[in-house]
């Protein structure tokens, strides 16, 4: 599986990508298609567009922090 670093993508393109994946953004946070902030799966905190990762597993968007990444690696051991 190929990897793209979101650090190298502009905010505008990240938002366009989110929309293409049936998410949305208010310019700062990641929103679901109903316009509500989505929460990090493990920490239950809102996710900023500029600090997100988008991972396989029915499209999982996480806050890019080591606790959430470690938890994801336990739940989906073969992805990262």
């Amino acid at each position: 599986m190929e990897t793209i670093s979101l650090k190298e993508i502009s905010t505008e393109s990240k938002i366009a990508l989110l929309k293409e994946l049936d998410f949305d953004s208010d310019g700062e946070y990641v929103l679901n298609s109903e316009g509500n902030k989505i929460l990090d799966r493990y920490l239950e905190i809102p996710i900023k567009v500029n600090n997100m990762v988008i991972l396989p597993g029915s499209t999982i968007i996480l806050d890019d922090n080591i606790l959430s990444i470690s938890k994801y690696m336990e739940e989906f051991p073969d992805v990262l």
Partner: protein
Amino acid sequence: MSSNVSEGITTALLKFSEEKIKQLAEYFRTNKLKFLGNSETIKIAKEVRDSGELIFYKAYIKDKPLLFNIKLGLILRRVENDPEKLSDLREKIIRKFQIKGLHIAYFVQNGILNRYVGILLDNLDSAETLNKIIANTLENIEKHVVFVSWKYKSRDIIQETMTLSAQKPNILIISGAGNTRKEILDSESQLSAILKNYELEKMSTEKKEILFFKINMLLEKNKQTKI
């Protein structure tokens, strides 16, 4: 994914075109692509996951949430020279696992768990016993460890140690870092006097001061025989 596809993706990112965004999303949906952030985060998570220390604990600790707290302690140790990462992770550990989770992680970060296991190994009859003792100690961490914060004075350390020692734990640890080191060192002789049935082992570094009191089984046995 072929190198041609990769090149296509790179070009698309530079152009930010609508068409290429659609293509990226399609690659993602078909599991050809993932979008990551800070590569250092993943590197650290993988290093800790594959570390011998964690593999050791995986063999003995069967409680998954507890094992994850141990992993977080190892990650704290790995990032302890990076104040920003350290502070961010502490904050997130508290958010997810409350202060107790942070204390368990500290216990691991500071090498106290390793030292404790070393002591247990001297008198161990089975792996199951090791699992039980470690799990019990970590689940009841506040009964074994005085976590000295910046607010503590020597008298607070002594007071809290006396409270914990009333329960006669097999180990009793006083742990602090930074400015708290002085208060811990100032308390040392008085603590040794209070904890007469314990042997003191110090785990000091430039930044941390850990007093590790382990119960002297021989003294304790003699005391009970006399009673």
